[in-house]
């Protein structure tokens, strides 16, 4: 695996889109969180009961809530690394290097493993950006809770798993469709439009079976940050339900992601390249 990673690095290190993605992610992840940080500031400054209610929840950008809130908001931008992942696989078809790598002496499994390594590494980079962002907000938002930094650290592996799971879906699309723009189009349209509408609609019409849609499965590992949730009398109940759903969704996410990679290995072993 290490030799595969070294070879992937030879491919990636001079690939401009990789550095662009890294640059954009390092700007947008702190940026989107800054936006919601101001939203939160506005809410607590409101002189009404709603604002006071939020106060009881504590600052979502202070430790330890920052791990959760920043994970939730950052996950909106999965499309950025997804573009890179799709490019990394469709480039191989475009340049026909998916054949050349085999001709030069990789096995077909080596090829898929190298792409698996790419997705794991891109997920890791994104997670590091998330981690640094969450850490910075934690240190900045409220110095009085710094001693609670080690609570809720489970959101770090959860964010990593969510990123990896959703990028794996992006990879599958790129791998099967082979054309970058079509794969990207389908990914964006499904991820941003279809599934969101689907989940919302199914919530009311079909007993919330939208939770089993491909992105929603991993989305629900990180519940909606509490301060932007709907607060009615069932608020507490809804939040508890979301937290209780984390473990089953972790298991479903692992199952779906494993299935995706299994499919890729299987197809690649048999098909003409």
């Amino acid at each position, binding site marked *: 695996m290490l*030799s595969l990673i*070294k*070879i992937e690095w*030879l*491919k990636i290190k*001079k*690939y*401009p889109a990789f550095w662009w993605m890294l640059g954009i992610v390092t700007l947008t992840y702190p940026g989107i969180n800054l936006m919601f940080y101001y939203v939160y500031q506005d809410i607590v400054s409101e002189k009404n009961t709603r604002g006071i209610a939020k106060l009881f929840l504590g600052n979502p950008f202070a430790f330890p809530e920052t791990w959760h809130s920043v994970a939730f908001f950052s996950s909106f931008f999965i499309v950025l690394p997804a573009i890179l992942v799709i490019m990394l696989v469709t*480039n191989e078809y475009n*340049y*026909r*290097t998916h*054949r*050349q*790598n*085999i*001709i*030069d*002496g*990789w*096995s*077909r499994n*080596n090829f898929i493993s190298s792409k698996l390594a790419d997705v794991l590494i891109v997920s890791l980079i994104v997670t590091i950006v998330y981690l640094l962002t969450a850490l910075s907000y934690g240190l900045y938002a409220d110095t009085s809770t710094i001693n609670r930094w080690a609570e809720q650290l489970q959101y770090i592996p959860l964010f990593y798993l969510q990123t990896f799971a959703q990028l794996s879906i992006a990879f599958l699309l790129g791998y099967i469709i082979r054309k970058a723009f079509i794969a990207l189009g389908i990914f964006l349209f499904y991820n941003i439009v279809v599934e969101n509408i689907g989940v919302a609609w199914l919530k009311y019409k079909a007993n919330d079976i939208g939770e089993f849609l491909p992105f929603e499965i991993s989305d629900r590992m990180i519940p909606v940050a509490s301060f932007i949730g709907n607060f009615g009398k069932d608020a507490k109940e809804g939040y508890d339900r979301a937290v209780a759903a984390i473990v089953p969704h972790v298991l479903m996410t692992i199952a779906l992601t494993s299935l995706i990679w299994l499919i890729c290995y299987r197809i690649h072993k*048999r*098909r*003409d*390249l």
Partner: protein
Amino acid sequence: MQPVLSIQGISKSYGRIQALNQVSFDVPAGCVFGILGPNGSGKTTLLSILLDILRADAGTYRWFGEPGSPASRQKIGSLLETPNFYHYLSAVDNLNITQAISGRGTPADIDQVLEIVKLSARKKSKFSTYSLGMKQRLAIAGALLGNPDVLLLDEPTNGLDPVGIAEIRELIKQLAREGKTIIMASHLLDEVEKVCTHVAILKKGTLLTAGPVDEVLSNEDIVELSASNTDQLGQILSAFAGPSHIKRDGDLFELFYPVGTARLDEINKTCFEKGVALNRLLLKKKSLEAKFFELTND
């Protein structure tokens, strides 16, 4: 001696189109083996199967006596169909990847192969800025990397200018002299004729013939002759016993003999004794082109 490559009954179809039908032959070590055939005869399909790019429907192949594997491919310098490289990387960076995957050669050898294909001056330019001929040269450099004992080249002179074609031919001959085994697919007959020691001819996925060039091509010796007195020469020749048949084309006669039976000195002597001085006397092997058309025409 064990053949470098042994192909047994390989078949492949794309839907209803039978691209290869029960193809079998061996490639002996140290030969230059040409795979010939018109467009769409299955040459590239066959080579793709040998490199695990395509899956055969039936049949087997063995490299170096072993079933095809990543390890066997690493030992073969291959160029299949088109030069396949990362567009945003330079020649050197691309060959670094070839070197890392194949394990052939060292990073230091990269400069050397780029020198052989005359790309040194542009070795740091991006692949996307290369002309078609330069891309082809880089692909040849990739195949040569690490000085492999076996080379598999699919249309190696594709996209090259006449000088480039001559250079690559010379390179192939030189590699053959060094004892390398070279397997080469081409539809350019003179290319194969000039460099190959062995040949296999494919037509619509079926192997028509395979073997040493001399055996495949020369089932007849052709003696071409002429004299200033054409009619008298014609009379003398019609009395000859040796040739299977005689063809006249203007002033030129062609005598067809079974392989190895034409005796030029005797023909010359007989004509002279009967009062005709020849101004042309030439033994020709049947040209590959003629043989090729004979074999591939319906």
